[in-house]
């Protein structure tokens, strides 16, 4: 049969919950392809020789091969190909920024819409979950060796590193500080973007490979990294995550009703405050909410606030729309749901009431000046533009600093001036022998997939170091 056919430059749209409906529930927004839609989308792939998409993937998934299997309707094969490189496909298919990775380098992207690789990845992962009996696969595992590795943190970096190491024959224990595994996938990313049962399915998959996960273990307190290395672990991979939230450093910031995005999302997602009082953890939302920042976390927080019942939700960002770091898709979702963007605006102080609750914020407008070292135009204060905005809840979503617990309790770890651990990007090695690092602790806040890439590289290097 001739492969020559007309290029289809339009991707199959993904069904979504309507904005007016979804803004009041925590169910997943994107509903996923049906089998027909997945095969139709996979058939658009021209299976080009260059397969640039692979280079765009931080964990090196064999993208054209798995898409070919989907096109042929051979889902078990698609699962096998995908999972040989990526242990968390259901997560990646939902939260990876494919538009700046595999889909950006897709050959079709030059002419029209690239293949919806993320949506297909999600389809394959969801298919496997629905057909777990049929798809039970024999995972290729090396003969167990006697080496043991301690992995600190069960977020994307930790899970990926652990899964790869256990497949290579290592004994792996993950130490997780919270009461459930998954890290940011559980406490940070909301249910409507990444359902928690999907995270737990993939965590269970990693466990089924033979990884032991110990919960409620804060490394640096219950045991130091040095103690792990003294007590039976041959190497340690540190992936404790994003750490401590940053605040605006303006007057009134400790009034009650001002949540860091981390706290707001943790209460909502991890502690299920959206189901209060069935779940015990409360959260306050009120009528008017302002989220400060322009990243994905700001989008997540604002969309959670809407779903928790806020009437008006604002994103307040000091630069313009083009400088917003949030994914286009997430920005679009937020705006569709009714989040109001107040751009080139910055807060100068919070005002409280007699009970110490925030009641308003003073804002001022910004103008764009000369580009700074990041290439983005530096915002400067517009004189005389101050105004007061009343609000019930304020949520600074400004990124995080590294958590001090591990750096302050581990001997001989070199740190950067930002407090992150000095890490070789290609291998994950730190300044300390037998200690590797990856994820946000090495790079500062980044993406799920870049953390997974770091976990993968570290696993390979740990293996290399023991073979040598």
């Amino acid at each position, binding site marked *: 049969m001739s492969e020559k056919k007309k290029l289809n430059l339009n991707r199959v749209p993904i069904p979504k919950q309507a904005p007016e409906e979804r803004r009041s529930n925590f169910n997943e927004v994107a509903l996923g392809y049906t089998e027909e839609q997945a095969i139709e989308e996979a058939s658009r792939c021209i299976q080009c020789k260059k397969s640039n998409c692979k280079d765009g993937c931080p964990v090196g998934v064999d993208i054209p091969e798995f898409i070919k299997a989907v096109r042929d309707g051979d889902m078990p094969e698609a699962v096998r190909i995908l999972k040989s490189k990526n242990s968390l496909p259901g997560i990646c298919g939902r939260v990876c920024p494919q538009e700046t990775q595999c889909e950006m380098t897709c050959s079709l992207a030059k002419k029209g819409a690239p293949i919806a690789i993320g949506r297909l990845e999600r389809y394959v992962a969801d298919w496997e979950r629905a057909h777990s009996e049929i798809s039970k696969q024999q995972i290729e595992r090396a003969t167990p060796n006697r080496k043991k590795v301690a992995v600190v943190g069960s977020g994307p970096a930790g899970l990926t590193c652990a899964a790869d190491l256990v497949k290579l024959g290592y004994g792996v224990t993950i130490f997780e500080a919270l*009461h459930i595994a998954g890290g940011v996938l559980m406490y940070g990313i909301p249910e409507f973007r990444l359902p928690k049962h999907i995270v737990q399915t993939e965590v269970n998959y990693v466990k089924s490979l033979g990884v032991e996960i110990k919960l*409620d273990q804060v490394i640096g307190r*219950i*045991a130091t990294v040095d103690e792990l290395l003294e007590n039976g672990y041959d190497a340690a991979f540190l992936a404790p*995550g994003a*750490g401590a939230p940053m605040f605006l450093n303006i007057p009134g910031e400790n009034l009650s009703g001002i949540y860091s995005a981390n706290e707001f999302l943790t209460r909502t997602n991890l502690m299920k405050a959206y189901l209060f*009082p*069935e779940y015990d953890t409360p959260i306050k939302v009120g009528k008017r909410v302002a989220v400060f920042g322009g990243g994905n976390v700001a989008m997540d927080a604002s969309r959670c606030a809407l779903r928790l019942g806020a009437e008006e939700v604002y994103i307040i960002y000091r630069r313009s729309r083009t400088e917003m770091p949030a994914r286009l898709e997430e920005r679009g979702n937020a705006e569709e749901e009714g989040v109001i963007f107040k751009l080139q605006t910055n807060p100068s102080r919070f005002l409280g009431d007699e009970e*110490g*609750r925030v009641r308003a914020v003073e804002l001022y407008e910004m103008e764009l000046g000369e580009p700074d070292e990041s290439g983005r135009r530096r915002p400067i204060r517009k004189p005389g533009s101050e105004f007061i905005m009343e609000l019930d809840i304020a949520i600074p979503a400004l990124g995080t600093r590294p958590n001090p617990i591990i750096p302050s309790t581990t001997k001989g770890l070199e740190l950067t001036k930002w407090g992150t651990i000095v890490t070789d990007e290609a291998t994950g090695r730190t300044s300390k022998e037998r200690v590797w690092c990856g994820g946000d602790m090495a790079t500062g806040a980044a993406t799920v997939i870049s953390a997974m890439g770091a976990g993968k590289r570290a696993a390979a290097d740990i293996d290399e170091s023991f073979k040598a």
Partner: protein
Amino acid sequence: MYKIVKREVLVPNMIYMKVEAPDIAQKAKPGQFIILRVDEFGERFPMSLAGWDKNEGTLEISFQIMGKSTMKLAALGEGEHVLDVVGPLGKSTEIDYYGNVLCVCGSFGVGPMITMIRALKEKGNKIVSVIEAESEAFLFWEDKLKEISDEAHVVVGDRGVGQVSEFVREYLKAGNKIDRVFAFGRVFMMMECSKATKAFEVKTIVSLTPIMVDGTGMCGCCRVSVGGETKFTCVDGPEFDGHLVDWELLIKRKQAYLKEEARAFNLWEPDNLRKVAELSKLPKRLSLVENE
């Protein structure tokens, strides 16, 4: 799962528990705390350690029933389990030789103070302890304190915790030489004691108990203002210089969820309340069920 091996009612509304947690017991030091989650639906909430036994592998806690979470915990009997216990968290106290140390405590602060006094004594400090309670009926472990203190005082009075700060003021005024003060207990007591000692310029260490969620420095819920700087109690504390703490802010932040707490508490099943009353062996007329 962490097994409760001992449960006692110390005084009305004050529960003592011993919980199996061998790894934490190995590591615990004075001044540290744990985070508990009683069941699948539960909050994560902090509690100071009132003791630990490395050999036995147990932790001790003493707590007041304040809301739904502490009530749920109180409703567990010996042999039952707490779902999650995380710790030891927070910085441990740097204990040194100071000389004469005044240790003021009350309520849930008594247990942690006993662990602190033991460590202070090891360094050769002379201990003057003060325990406060609203009345004789709420006084507990004063005998334990007396045993380990060089000088022990009991301040009981229905004028509330204000009285203990008056005691501290008078004690210092009388010319007693004190080199360091520790105050553990209810916020109001610690605040008043800090005010009293400030006039005499005696450094006063307090142990703060704001609302927490993760307890590991990730959320910032427990932020307090100390000397004009924002600190996270869970990783920078929980102990701070009482003269530098912004007490008003702390109290207001602690009260942020009073309405929600009341709602959650009131919706809690009467069956569970009955169990608490039974376990606590409260006289019928005092039982919580009748007030429902």
